[in-house]
């Protein structure tokens, strides 16, 4: 009997926790409001510029690079991949609505059939396998990376539009949220510790960008050698820096993380293949 009472009271606690659990929209609003409160002068739309939003000098430098991006030839390679027909004569454009225009902002989306998050990269691979082609490796920047460097530009200007509907989608979202707030690596950092709690502060010499907007501008060409980084490659690099062995690029943990992370950017315009330090 005692055990039963204990069990019932535990269930009661769980119920209470579930009731107070914030909805994804509450989460997003509270994160955005945190930034607005601290930086009332920065426009919501400018969150897509990340750390550049805090530094007019860095933004001017960025604008200069973006006038004639030195990595244009790489995007061209991606365009060639996108345009080339599969062996069966079909093309990527045949796999997406509007021939692939203004679609990337709907990804990651939750697939009720497989009960899994589907990233844009996964959708590209599904298009390949459905047409008899071998899938690309998500971590391969020379194939998947380049392909997205062009394919995502077809959605430039589209607002991020992630949907979390139903219990399974919410569970995937919550798992991504947990990852974002979980301390990892020997250095004991979390994504949230820097990009929510310390947004706009300076880490030695670098401004810490705001979480909303971070998912809108991938892939990016980074650093002096303009290395191509998909969003998940960036996750891996960040994990490595805090001394965590990176998880699998294209694996379920990073997919769920991208789901939560992208939701925080809802309402912000996409712009792919930008330059980042």
């Amino acid at each position: 009997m005692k055990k039963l009472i204990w069990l019932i009271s535990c269930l009661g606690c769980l119920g209470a926790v579930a009731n107070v659990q914030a909805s994804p929209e509450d989460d997003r609003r509270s994160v955005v409001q945190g930034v607005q409160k601290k930086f009332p002068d920065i426009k919501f739309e400018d969150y897509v510029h990340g750390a550049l939003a805090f530094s007019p000098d860095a933004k001017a430098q960025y604008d200069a690079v973006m006038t004639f991006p030195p990595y244009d030839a790489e995007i061209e390679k991606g365009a060639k991949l996108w345009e080339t027909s599969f062996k069966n004569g079909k093309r990527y454009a045949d796999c997406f609505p509007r021939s692939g225009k203004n679609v990337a902002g709907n990804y990651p989306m939750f697939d009720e059939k497989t009960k899994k998050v589907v990233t844009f990269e996964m959708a590209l691979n599904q298009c390949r396998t459905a047409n008899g082609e071998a899938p690309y490796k998500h971590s391969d920047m020379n194939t998947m990376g380049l392909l997205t460097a062009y394919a995502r530009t077809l959605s430039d200007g589209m607002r991020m539009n992630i949907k979390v509907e139903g219990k399974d989608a919410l569970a995937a979202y919550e798992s991504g949220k947990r990852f974002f707030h979980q301390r990892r690596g020997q250095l004991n950092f979390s994504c949230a510790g820097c990009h929510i709690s310390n947004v706009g502060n300076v880490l030695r010499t670098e401004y810490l960008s705001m979480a909303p907007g971070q998912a809108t501008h991938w892939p990016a060409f980074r650093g002096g050698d303009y290395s191509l980084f998909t969003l998940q490659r960036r996750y891996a690099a960040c994990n490595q820096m805090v001394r965590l062995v990176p998880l699998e690029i294209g694996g379920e943990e990073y997919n769920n993380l991208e789901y939560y992370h992208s939701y925080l950017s809802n309402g912000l315009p996409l712009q792919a293949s930008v330059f980042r330090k």
Partner: protein
Amino acid sequence: MNQISPTLRAAGACVILIAGFLQVARADEPKAPTGQELAFDNRKGNCLACHSMPGDAKAVTSTNIAPPLLDMKGRFPERAKLYAQVWDATKANADTLMPPFGKHRILSDDEINKVVDYIYGL
């Protein structure tokens, strides 16, 4: 003199050889870093990522994340409390960004002591 010179030459060569060995040994043994070096090194203490040090002209940083390291003796009259803070800052503040240098063995106890000695003088 002619007769002994080959022996002398050999001996001299040996002395040079031995000296060489000693030098190699000394070069191999890394010079132990000072507390300041450990504090600045971004693979070690990396204090400057989050703390400014107005009292040390060599401490170059633009950070504003954590309190500047100054008047440390005033703020931590007990050195042990400062040591504990470096060892695991999450004990005093669960949400802190500061890595637990001792608990996670980012620095050895000896290294933490050197860093604490250094910042205690700031």
